[in-house]
Structures are given as C-alpha cells and as structure tokens.
C-alpha cells in the first residue's frame, strides 16, 4: 500500500489497510479480548484469596469444568436469546419456558414413555411455546416485551398447575446420568453447550437464516424491501429460542434430577445480560455468539468465585453489580471505537 491518498477522494469506498486495533470489522474481536481480560482478572482475584486451591492445576482444571457445567443450561438459552436480540426482539419468557418444559417432561405420564419421550416432550413444549410467542409478535403485532412477559406469567402458571406445585423427581436413569457423565474428563453438559454454541455460530454466520436475522434487526424495513419475509422469520426466531429452552430444560432436569414450576427463575435477565455484556446490541442488528458465550462464562465464574471465597449473599450482590459495570467499562476504556459505538446506541 502506497501513501497516495488520492484514490480515496475518487473512490469513496476505498479500504485503507487498517490495524487490528482500528478495523471496524474486528471490533467484536477486540470486545471479546477485553472480556477475556475480565475473566483473567477474576481468576487472579480467586488465586489471591485462595492460593492453596488455585495452586493446584488439577483443581483449577476441575473447577473450570464445574464452571462450564454450571454455565451450560443458561448458555444454551443465551444462544437463542442472542438470535432474538440480534433480530431486534427480546424474550422474557425463557426461564418460564424452561420450567414449563421441565415439569411437563417429568410428569409421571411422560416419564412412562422413557428418555426419548421426555426429551421429545421438552423440546416440543419449548418450540410450541416459542411459536406462540412468535405468532403473537409477528402476526399479532404485539411488542415482544409484552408478548413474552405475558408468556412468562402464563407459562409459570401452567407449570404450577401441571406439577401441582410439587417438585417432580425424574426417575429416568438416562436423563439423570447426563449431568454426571464426563467423557474425556469434560462434563457432558459442557459438551452439549459447546455443540449448541457451535451450531448457533454456523447458523448465524454462515446461513441465510443468520444473515436475515442480522438484516431484520439492523433495519427491518430494508429487510422487507429486500424481499425477506420478516414476519415469518421473526416467528421462527422465537421458535428457535423456545427450542433452546427445551434443550436447557432437559439439561437442568438432569442436573437437579427433578423439575419444578419455580425453576430457572430470572434466567431471562441473566441471558439478556450475558448477551449484552458479550457485545450484542439491545436494539438489534449486531452481536456475536462467541461474545455471548464469554458473557455467560463470566457470570458463571463470578458465582463460582463467590462460592470459593464464601462471600455472604448480600455482599455477593453488591460485588456482582460492580463487576457487571466494570466488565462493560473495561471494554469501553480500552478501545476508543467501542466508545463511539455506544454513544450512538
């Protein structure tokens, strides 16, 4: 690349070679790097407070696996949530859908159909409820916030009715064993999360479905004028989120060997927060699966750190609030362009 600037005036779109630190297309990478910095910071804090634990490499590996395992269900939900938010929506019903799918698949009747029947039920309930959300939003033209809030309330009610407000114990050996299986020393649930996230990444970045999601969230009118069926796509997005809830319900049931109507409380807030911390724009059109996953892992690591350092609950809350603010601020302070980005949002 020579120094002449002339072609720029002639050709307004010319690309000067830009460094990694200034290239706008690399901005998500830079954010993710900053988030990984936050993770390292959390690790260091842990190591300072409990050096005897963090000094043991086996424990450290083991602890990482525990973190991944604990992050798995919420992680799967966050994959769906990332799609929803990128597509310009919001889904407040995810926690309730997990609870509903969970109690539905652990009713005595369903359990009698065996593991496959349970998994099928959970997924079907999730997708079905997600479709209801999608139809209300895309065709009923409800604001996503209201439609999914209504679903939240209704699904928790239905879950309470189905479960008779009792915790339902899963007697299915296969389902219960998922959480305790550790192929190659890695928890099965963590592997499922990685698989779902990888599929999500491909879907978002390499398929028309993903590209259309970005287009609808970025400029719904442009997408419509370009011939995209915005309504149908929006509906499918909520079904996808419901699917993720169904999968997460199985994972959570396996972890707790049971389900209840009050399960997965406030998962919606955690999932949304993880996605936003991971760089997803709440107004739609921008976001990455990788960022969201790092966001989820940060939250799980914070919880883990609290357990390890035995922080009292009320202090946990205060510290957690601080860390959330810090994580976002760090991304901003380091990289000027990120800052500009946020002004505009």
């Amino acid at each position, binding site marked *: 690349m020579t120094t002449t600037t002339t072609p720029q005036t002639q050709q307004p779109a010319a690309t000067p070679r830009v460094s990694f630190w200034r290239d706008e297309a690399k901005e998500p990478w830079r954010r993710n790097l900053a988030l990984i910095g936050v993770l390292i910071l959390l690790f260091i804090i842990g190591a300072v407070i409990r050096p005897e634990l963090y000094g043991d490499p086996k424990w450290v590996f083991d602890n990482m696996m525990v973190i991944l395992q604990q992050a798995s269900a919420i992680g799967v939900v966050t994959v769906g949530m990332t799609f929803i938010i990128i597509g310009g929506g919001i889904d407040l019903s995810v926690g309730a859908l997990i609870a509903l799918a969970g109690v539905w698949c652990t009713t005595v009747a369903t359990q009698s159909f065996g593991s496959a029947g349970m998994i099928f039920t959970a997924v079907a309930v999730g997708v079905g409820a997600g479709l209801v959300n999608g139809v209300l939003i895309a065709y009923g033209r409800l604001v996503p916030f209201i439609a999914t809030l209504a679903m939240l309330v209704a699904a928790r009610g239905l879950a309470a009715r189905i479960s008779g407000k009792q915790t339902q114990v899963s007697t299915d050996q296969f389902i219960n064993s998922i959480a305790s299986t550790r192929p190659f020393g890695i928890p099965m649930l963590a592997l499922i999360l990685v698989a779902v996230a990888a599929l999500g990444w491909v879907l978002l970045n390499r398929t028309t479905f993903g590209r259309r999601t970005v287009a609808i969230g970025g400029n719904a009118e442009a997408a419509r004028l370009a011939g995209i069926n915005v309504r149908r796509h929006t509906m499918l997005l909520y079904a996808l989120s419901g699917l993720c809830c169904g999968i997460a319900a199985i994972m959570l049931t396996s972890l707790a060997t049971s389900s*209840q109507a009050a399960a997965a409380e406030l998962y919606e807030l955690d999932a949304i927060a993880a996605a936003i911390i991971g760089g997803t724009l709440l107004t739609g059109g921008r976001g990455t699966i990788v960022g969201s996953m790092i966001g989820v892992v940060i939250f799980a690591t914070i919880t883990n750190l609290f357990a390890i350092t*035995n922080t009292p609950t009320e202090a946990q809350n205060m510290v957690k609030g601080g860390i959330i603010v810090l994580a976002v601020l760090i991304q901003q302070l380091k990289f000027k362009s990120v800052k500009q980005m946020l002004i505009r949002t």
Partner: protein
Amino acid sequence: TSNETPNNTQTKGADTNNPNAAAGKQVTIGFSAPAADHGWIAAITNNAKAQAATYKDVTFKQVEAGKDAAAQRAVLETLIAEKPDVIVLLPHDGKELNAFGLKAMAAGIPVVNLDRAFPDALAYRCQIKGDNYGMGVAAGHYIGKALKAKNIASPVIGEIAGMDELELTQERSQGFKAALATYGFTVSNRRAARFTADSGQAEATGLFQALNKIDAVWNHDDDQGIGVLAAMNSSNRKEFLLVGGAGSKAAIEAIAKDDSPLKATVTYSPSMASSAISLARLIGQSKGMADLVELQVPKEIILASETITKENASTYLRLGF
C-alpha cells in the same frame, strides 16, 4: 435467649447436668441454608451460628447458598472438598439436592438434613424438620374449636398462604383444610402472598374486598403478618379471629397483650437450626442423646407444631424470632 453476635437467637447453653455438655472431640460442622430474604430463614442461619458458638469443641463453617438450588449445589461441591466432619444442610429444595446428600454420605460425611426433606433415606444421617402439615392442622383445629365455641354454623374462613410454588406451602394448606373439614368448615378464600410484608398487605386487602364479613383468617407466616395487620388497620377490619404462623417474637408479644384480632400462632420454629447443630456435634462425636437410651442420635426428628395462645405466650416468648 442467650448470646452475642446476631442478637435475638434461640440457643441452649451448656447444661452441667448433661453428660454431653463436656467438651469432646473437635468437630467441624459445615452449614448451608438458602440466602435469607425473610425473617424465618435469617433466624435459621443466626440460630445455627449462635448455637455453634456455645460449643468450644465445634468449628462452624458456613457456606452461602446463592439464589437457587443450582447455586447451592455449586457451593456444596466446594464444601465437600474441604471435608468437614458433619454437614448441616437446609436445601433450597429437598428433591433437587437429594443427589448431593447421597454424594456427601458416600464420601463419608454424615448429613443432617434440616427441615426440607431429602426423599431418599440414604441421603442423610439424621433429619430434623418442622411439620408443615401439622402446622396447618394446628391452625385448623384452633380456628375450628374457637368458631364452634362461638356457635357459628357456616363460618367465613380466609387463608393467606406463603409462596405458593413451595411445597411447604402446599402441605400447610392441606393440613389446614383437613383439620377444618373435621368441623365441617371450608376455606372461603385463599390468597398466596410471598412471605413479605408488602405482599401480605396486598393479599389481605384483596381478601377483605372479597369477603364482606369474615370469621377467621389463618396467615401462614408472621413476617408477612406485619402486612396483614397493617391492612386490617387501614381498612378497619377487625371482626375476625386471626391466627399466625411460624411464631415471631412480635406476634407472640401481640398475642400476650391480647389487644388485636391475633389470638394465636402455630409454631414452625427456627430453633430447629440450633437443635440441628447440637445433633451434628453429637454425631460428629459419636454420642447419643442423653435422655434417650440409644447410644446414637436417631434418624429422624419432627418438631411438633405448637399453638401459642395468650395462656402460654410467656413460655414461648423465648423461642420467638
């Protein structure tokens, strides 16, 4: 009540006549209960702490349980790794944490299961719990008898329950219903609050709107009862007989004074946490309960739900939280 740190706790200090009082082998007790967001749970944790402090031979190791069963499971994993002698555990949900109990027992750590029961007998060494069903029964009988005494044929009875998604709430309501049924009475309106004073106020207000005249109300929880009393004052509804639940100090005092519709409360005492610590110590030291013939602590202890009325309030004031 005795004691320093968290004030207002229920403990039993060393009784010199009790052979178990003598200091024995040093015991580390791990303890976990859900995060306190209301009085009863806060009292549980405070009692456990205070009771442990009365023993010179007990090291108390409390781990915070976080906001749900999943979070509690995560901290308990780290607790096992630290190999305490006994674990006292009040789980978020007995069924959800059953697997943990099994794991700890398998690792050779006896578990004292506090209040919310593990369904699997292999998951605990000893279970000490309140009697939720019995609590409802006690409230039902008190109200039933009182109304029969007043000769009310078909009384209007209200119920303000706690958080409805908890099994314990369901059990309490079932007990209440069953006891009332023996008098031929039924609940006319049942509202579920959230164990907080503001929700208690809201649900009580709704109840008063629904029922023009009420003969008796059972409120499951004395903490939310503060709101119920406030609602009674602001809407001027005092024609009925109110029975509380759990047994808070304020409620017991009010019953003793007898200047409000609150005539009784049925206990579900957080003192069980103090007892659980005592039991854990004995288990850790392989001792039995001195008054029993058995050489070891029994497998299961269920507290009876007692009815506190004006007559016996003074004796119970000590256990109010």
